[in-house]
């Protein structure tokens, strides 16, 4: 455990010593802020328009469904692009700079190394998402959104972010080239996003399988406020699957 934390702490520090952390944080927060600003503006306009009309059902026009929900969806898309850049260095850089030899000639287990790398990425993602909590905070100061919905949506986003980090660690462990790691990770994540597109036209079983594999389906449930164990299990298994694959990839590279 001590070794795991040592590795995680060094990785995290190195991200903050280099410009990477600041660029990633700024970029993510800038885009999220822009989404929030526009969603809020749109919400205001809609409220103004619909308040003039009488007898219309406007229950759908609330802060949760019109602002927080779409905001979380948009943030998930930005996360998809940003998280491979957080994790691209994790193994690839150690390999190309020669510090890989230090790690693997120290009394550390592969699990500790993989865990440490994952923890460092997870910590940065946690910080990133924690800062965005300012958006629901603003909304709840000036309105009264439902807190339960915000909680479940954020939980979904956070679990998704963790699984993205695990995927990124895996692709980084495959190569010493950070660009290849990023692109591979991006491709895997995008595929997980859109894998259920053919579900509509597919047969019953195929449809269920594709929908189950899709990150977006599970995330959508949580944004809607449904915390289903199936969704939690999905994200947990996605994360652990890719951590396991990372472990295997790291081991396999030594046996070549």
């Amino acid at each position, binding site marked *: 455990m*001590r*070794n795991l934390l*040592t*590795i995680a702490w*060094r990785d995290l520090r*190195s991200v903050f*010593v*280099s410009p990477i952390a600041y660029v990633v944080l700024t970029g993510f927060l800038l885009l999220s802020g822009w989404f929030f600003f526009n969603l809020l503006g749109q919400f205001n306009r809609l409220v103004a328009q619909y308040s003039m009309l009488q007898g219309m059902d406007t229950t759908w026009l609330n802060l949760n469904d019109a602002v927080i929900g779409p905001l979380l969806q948009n943030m998930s898309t930005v996360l998809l692009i940003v998280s491979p850049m957080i994790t691209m260095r994790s193994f690839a850089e150690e390999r190309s*700079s*020669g*510090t*890989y*030899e*230090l*790690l*693997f*000639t*120290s*009394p*550390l287990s592969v699990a500790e190394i993989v865990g440490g790398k994952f923890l460092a990425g997870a910590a940065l993602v946690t910080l990133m998402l924690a800062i965005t909590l300012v958006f629901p905070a603003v909304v709840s100061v000036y309105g009264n959104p439902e807190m339960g919905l915000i909680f479940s949506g954020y939980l979904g986003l956070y679990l998704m972010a963790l699984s993205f980090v695990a995927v990124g660690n895996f692709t980084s462990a495959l190569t010493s080239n950070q660009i290849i790691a990023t692109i591979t990770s991006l491709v895997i994540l995008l595929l997980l996003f859109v894998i259920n597109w053919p579900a509509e036209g597919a047969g019953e079983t195929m449809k269920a399988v594709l929908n189950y594999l899709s990150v977006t389906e599970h995330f959508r449930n949580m944004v809607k406020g449904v915390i289903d164990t199936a969704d939690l299990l999905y994200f947990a298994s996605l994360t652990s699957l890719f951590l396991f694959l990372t472990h295997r990839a790291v081991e396999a590279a*030594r*046996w*070549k």
Partner: protein
Amino acid sequence: MPALRFLRLHLPPLSLLPLRSPALRSPSLYSPSPRFLDSHLACAKTVASRRDATFAQEMIDVKNLSKSYGSVTAVSGVSFQAKTGQATGFLGPNGAGNTTTMRIITGFMPATEGTVTVDGFDVFDDSFEVRRRIGYLPETPPLYLEMKVDRYLQHVAKLKGVARKQIRQATERVVSECGLEAVAGRLCGHLSKGYRQRVGLAQALIHEPAVLILDEPTIGLDPAQIIEIRELIKGLTAERTVILSTHILPEVAQICQRVVIINEGRVALETDIADLTSHGSLEQEYLRHVGRDSAQSRGVTGGSGRTSATAAGNAGEGKAVDRARDERGSADA
């Protein structure tokens, strides 16, 4: 207390011993010193030298080691031993399998065949025990360029399992041992090649390993730096088992007591330097075992397309001798 001394020889690595252990403070073992660390080190030296005298055992035992990368065989059937208090020089042309052998000994990669034991522990089965006993300086020093030197050394100490309370002491020790005081607060990435090499050496020494494995420690340094690093390594040999690879023949003669020449993945010669110099120079031996073969196999021919075996051999010999002389010259400059 002969019985007690005997027991002490089998204690875990010295860094793991509690510094205030009454046994270690026994005045029969060292001359009293005001500073605890000093006395601790003095004790370490005493124990190590006693160990040499009474138990000149095989610290590293490599048996029949083979390693293939896919269809390419890098090392095949390499066997040799290294004793405590001895430096063994690994000689061989580039690509002969030096680095591969070292990487296997350090546990960085597993062997395809054969066994390596360090201090009686198998590299594969008791990997952690072996890693705790080995300090390794790879060909490129494994530095995190964005870290400061002292922070980096502390980080390595943690990775190597140095007890939390001793990390600062250990760092200070290697900083002064390797002459890094002036750069301790600087970023690794801003250091010159010579200092990077020294930080690499400090990193290898931080957990007071009984075995030091150095992959071309003097490569790319200027003559003054080469001499400094050599002196440093020589000083480290007394209480440790050192294996170092190099292409510089005089370096082996200067630092090492033993030499292993590897060519095309096989041990071509394993002998004591003392024996060697009585029969002929290291250069002659090297060329006898490596120069001709490698020149032949690579089709190296000097001048205008001479292809007969002797001609090729002579050409290779000439070049190698020239290179060796150049290097000696630059080192002595």
